[in-house]
């Protein structure tokens, strides 16, 4: 456990020790600020049933920043280590492959979660200025943020897999982006195929992050997406572990 924590500390440190981290943080903040503005504008125009939380997490800007951020966070986790050659010092220390894989994964996930901390401020400001509740109920916050964590876990795992597959960070980013985008659009399949049958609609709902976020940010809790994201994350992490081991032993 101590070794895992040491590795995790190193991963978190290295995530913040690079200029890219602050570029990502800056632009992420910029886009989410714009997204907040768009959300407020939307609420002003349509006096309807949506809440601020719902408006914030269901815009095009939100999803744009969301899918873009994972490749940037995860592209370096394995690829950089191989490129620097530090994989050699790392793996000749008495650490298990699994410890390394998990530390890298949770290090990336931690950075992703940090990205969302400022968003809490928006809702606080909204309530403070308008004296209105940003969410219909506490469940709305809970739903939206747990969905952020769940989808984040899955997509971070995909990014880690891409990074474990190649020594080149750019290639890793492209693979991760392509994979995440493919999954994302799979969830929009019923939009592209309006005439599709119930099977396609059912499948689409099962994998659609847009749909899941819509429900959860309204405070509707559904176990299906929870199971889907948790099991997919574990599956992809298992693949990361296998790829990492395979590439290490075959070299």
């Amino acid at each position, binding site marked *: 456990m*101590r*070794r895992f924590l040491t*590795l995790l500390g190193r991963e978190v440190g290295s995530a913040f020790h690079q200029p890219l981290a602050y570029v990502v943080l800056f632009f992420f903040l910029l886009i989410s600020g714009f997204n907040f503005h768009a959300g407020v504008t939307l609420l002003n125009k349509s006096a309807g049933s949506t809440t601020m939380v719902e408006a914030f997490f269901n815009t095009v800007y939100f999803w744009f920043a969301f899918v873009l951020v994972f490749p940037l966070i995860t592209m370096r986790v394995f690829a950089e280590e191989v490129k620097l050659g530090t994989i*050699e010092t790392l793996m000749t*220390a008495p650490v298990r492959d699994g410890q390394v894989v998990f530390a890298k994964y949770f290090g990336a996930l931690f950075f992703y979660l940090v990205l969302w901390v400022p968003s809490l401020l928006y809702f606080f400001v909204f309530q403070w200025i308008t004296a209105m509740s940003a969410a219909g109920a506490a469940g709305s916050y809970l739903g939206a943020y747990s969905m952020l964590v769940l989808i984040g876990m899955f997509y971070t795992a995909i990014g880690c897999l891409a990074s474990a597959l190649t020594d080149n960070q750019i290639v890793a980013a492209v693979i991760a982006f392509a994979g995440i985008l493919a999954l994302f659009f799979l969830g929009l399949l019923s939009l592209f195929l309006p005439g599709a049958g119930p099977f396609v609609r059912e499948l689409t709902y099962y994998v659609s992050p847009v749909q899941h976020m819509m429900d959860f940010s309204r405070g509707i809790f559904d176990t299906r997406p929870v199971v889907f994201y948790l099991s997919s994350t574990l599956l992809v992490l298992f693949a990361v572990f296998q790829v990492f081991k395979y590439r290490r032993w075959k*070299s």
Partner: protein
Amino acid sequence: MIKVEQLTKCYGPVKAVDSIDFEVAKGEIVGFLGPNGAGKSTTMKILAGFLPPTSGRAEVAGRDVFSESLRAREHIGYLPENVPLYPDMRVHEYLRYRAALKGVPGRRMNERVGDVLELCGLGDVEKKIIGRLSKGYRQRVGLADAMVHEPDLLILDEPTIGLDPNQIRLVRDLIRNLKRHHTILLSTHILPEVEMLCSRVIIINKGRIEALDSPQNLRARLGVAGQIFLEARVPDAKAAAAEIRRIAGVDSVTARADGAWAIFTIQPAPGADPREALYEHAVAAKWPLRELSRSAVSLEQVFAEVTHAEEN
């Protein structure tokens, strides 16, 4: 400390290491010598637990490096060839991280990190970022990392490559001082280094062990005798050379003049040492002597002999 049996490593069709056997006892410094691409680094990577062998086995401190890799790695301090380090960390941060990773307990952390900082002469750069360090300092950070957990065995892959002569001397002194507490396997292609540091030498070429012995024995075994230099003031250099050639144990003589002095380069017969006879002859002939010496056979000659014999 190290036991290698029939170790083979193939990269595709290429045999980088070809069924080698050797053992290293506790407290030895063994030099791994060979031209580039001979299989030195590959063997070291296998021993350090980074690469799996294709066949054969290797043990470190009684633990198989493949099947009990984690246990074996606890006993090893490994310095890879190009000294990979994290450029974003500070020196003391890095050493603390590495020490924790290698299981140095928290209460001994300050002591251990302080010790290796001092031992490797890193005291004045401990707060610097590794990415900004010079090559010599980076090398020493790598060494400090290799020994921060007091491993029984140090595996150092070309520890002095790319350093300037002063830094090389520092690193060599450091290694010599480590001898007391550690077993060391180091690779190099700087031959004087091996002569200075190692108690035994393994010469490896094209994945095979060509020679394994102490530097002294290697020299003796190959029977390459060192040349003898004689400087004397003689009336006639040519005549003197002819006289010297007649002395028992002398193979050939060449002479050249240095002012009033003549310098003879004498190749003794294998196994012979005619220095005493030379002295007596000089006394009898009343030649004033300025020098009579014998050059040691350098390992360089041994090395060339061993690695070229194969090719011819």
